[in-house]
């Protein structure tokens, strides 16, 4: 039983991280039908900016948790600005080009950002000051670290906040309207460029938060770290139904849990295989994903 509970906690933590990254994919896809391959790089950049701020802030003698909070906010802000810049440079000029061109532009941006990180930050892994948030407690045979709790709480808060923003605020309404019909929403006075830019910013900010938490949880960041979680989170977004925010959360949790349980009970060698078998099986029976809705092509 302890074994199961421990694996459950492992799975939920990993799933929470995937969910945060998956949200960015799904939001951008929902609004401009673009698979933003550069999204994993925002996650990596967030991790790097985070460690730079944390090192600087803790040198100022601030309390560890204040450092964590402040650097989290600052790196979310930074990545939001970075994503807006990327959108402006790489995607906006291609707004009316074929989808393939935008996709290629996204791939190029991903390579550019990854190599940019390598050239500016070096090839060595950057250690996180993990001593700030070390420790945990044991319940019976189950070990829960503080960082796991922080990840779960923060993920939940961000997800609730995001949901509230999308469904309760004016900008959220504008986002939903633009996602439904860009031309029509423009006719009623919504500036679709601003809304799209804003969507990129929010998605990247969430990825940056995930980047910092990964840094603290695993102890280091490196410039290639965006690739694998990016692919997994993309799979999570597709699994949940791409374009659907709740779907991305559910998809992230499922991918994380399947991975952990497959490794824990079957074979660690095939954990990714199981995660992707689930993805294929779900898409076979529900082609739009778990929570995706059927949309006819006229909308896009």
């Amino acid at each position, binding site marked *: 039983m302890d074994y199961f509970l421990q694996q459950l906690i492992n799975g939920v933590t990993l799933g929470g991280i995937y969910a945060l990254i998956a949200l960015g994919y799904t939001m951008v896809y929902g609004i401009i039908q673009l698979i933003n391959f550069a999204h994993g790089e925002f996650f990596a950049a967030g991790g790097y900016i985070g460690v730079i701020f944390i090192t600087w802030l803790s040198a100022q003698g601030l309390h560890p948790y204040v450092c964590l909070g402040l650097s989290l906010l600052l790196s979310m802000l930074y990545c939001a600005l970075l994503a807006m810049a990327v959108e402006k440079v790489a995607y906006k000029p291609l707004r009316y080009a074929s989808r393939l061109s935008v996709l290629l532009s996204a791939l190029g941006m991903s390579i550019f950002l990854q*190599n940019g990180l390598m050239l500016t930050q070096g090839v060595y892994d950057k250690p996180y000051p993990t001593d700030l948030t070390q420790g945990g407690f044991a319940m019976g045979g189950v070990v829960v670290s503080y960082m796991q709790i922080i990840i779960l709480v923060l993920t939940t808060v961000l997800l609730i906040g995001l949901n509230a923003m999308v469904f309760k605020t004016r900008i959220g309404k504008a986002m939903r309207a633009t996602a439904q019909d860009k031309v029509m929403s423009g006719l009623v006075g919504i500036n679709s460029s601003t809304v799209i830019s804003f969507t990129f910013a929010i998605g990247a900010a969430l990825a940056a938060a995930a980047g910092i938490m990964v840094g603290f949880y695993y102890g*280091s960041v490196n410039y290639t770290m965006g690739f694998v979680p990016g692919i997994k989170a993309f799979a999570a977004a597709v699994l949940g139904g791409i374009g659907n925010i709740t779907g991305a959360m559910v998809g992230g949790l499922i991918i994380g849990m399947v991975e952990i349980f497959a490794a*824990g009970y079957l074979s*660690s060698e095939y954990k990714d295989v199981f995660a992707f078998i689930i993805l294929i099986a779900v898409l076979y029976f529900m082609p739009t994903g778990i929570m995706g809705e059927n949309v006819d092509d006229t909308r896009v």
Partner: protein
Amino acid sequence: MKRFILAVLALALVAVAGCDSGPKEALKVGSMSPLTGPYAADGNDIANGVRTAIEVTQQAGGLPGFESIQLIAEDTACDPRQAVAAANKLINEGVVAVVGAYCSSSTIPASETLDQEGVVMITPASTNEKVTERGLKNMFRTCGRDDDQSIAAIKFMTDYLKAKTLFIIDDKTTYSQGLADSVEKKAAAAGIDVLGHEHVNQGDKDFSAVLTKAKEANPDVLYMSMQNSATGSLLIIQARRMGLKCAAIGQDAVYHPQFIEIAKDAAEGVYLTFGYIDKDKPAYKKFLDAYTAKYGEPGAYSAYAYDSAMALFEAIKMAKGKTDAATISANLKQLTMEGASKKMDYLENGDSGSNYIIRKVENGQFINFWDPQTGKVFEK
């Protein structure tokens, strides 16, 4: 007018070419290592080791018969296909020899290509047995071999730790899995019960699932066979956090200053197998001074890369300007010299002997801990 300009340009070209083809020319050597990708840290250590060897040699007057030594550093990204492409590129560039690669899975295919074209290859870091077991005439190895490395690890488990049970985790490369398999086989023969042998994927950061399994198995020793130090530190951080308190043994790829830098407290008490390097001898100090002046603290394989290149230059010096593979290979097998890492003395098959010892992390430092040859703890 056009013709005139063309003529001038042509003359200029001839003049430029003329400068190059003097009596002396540059000696071209290549290096191959992962300069990008997850193993870029070790890869750059290797390239910098070769650069240091070139700088030291040139400061000491260079090689007779050559104006200078030119390094062409190629990136393998630890990818077999890219390694073969890099090998072909170096052949086209006309290098006389190559120092590299890092990953055994790159060295093996690249050496086939280089050997066909008669280019000598000296690997400073690929420890898989197969590297020198294929009968290639021009393949050399400055580091140790994994079959010896696993013997050292097993001996430490039985003789010093008195371990009864073992749990192995590797990350599925030619090198890391090859070594882990060899440890598993020898452990069983030595009467150690292997409770589990798990594999993780490259690029994984989360090892919580397999570590929970390891904790459930409750072994005396956790053997970590990872392809690099950063992954090794992720593994040990998570293992300690999970409450896995058993002895942990890593191998030569996990051995790197970065391991302690990232894992910090979690690294304390971890044992690692790595070749013995006498850091007090003059040859090492000479290397260390030259290296740190330009590239910072040496990585795990910097000294081996430096020695590989120094041995190569020595062999070329002995050949008196001849640079064909047969001569260089014959000279490499003949020479003995005091290197920074070890005494350089290549055997007939290209190996240079293993001298694995157990090191331990203590107070944020690697210390020499136990010698499998004598079965004794090193004196401090």
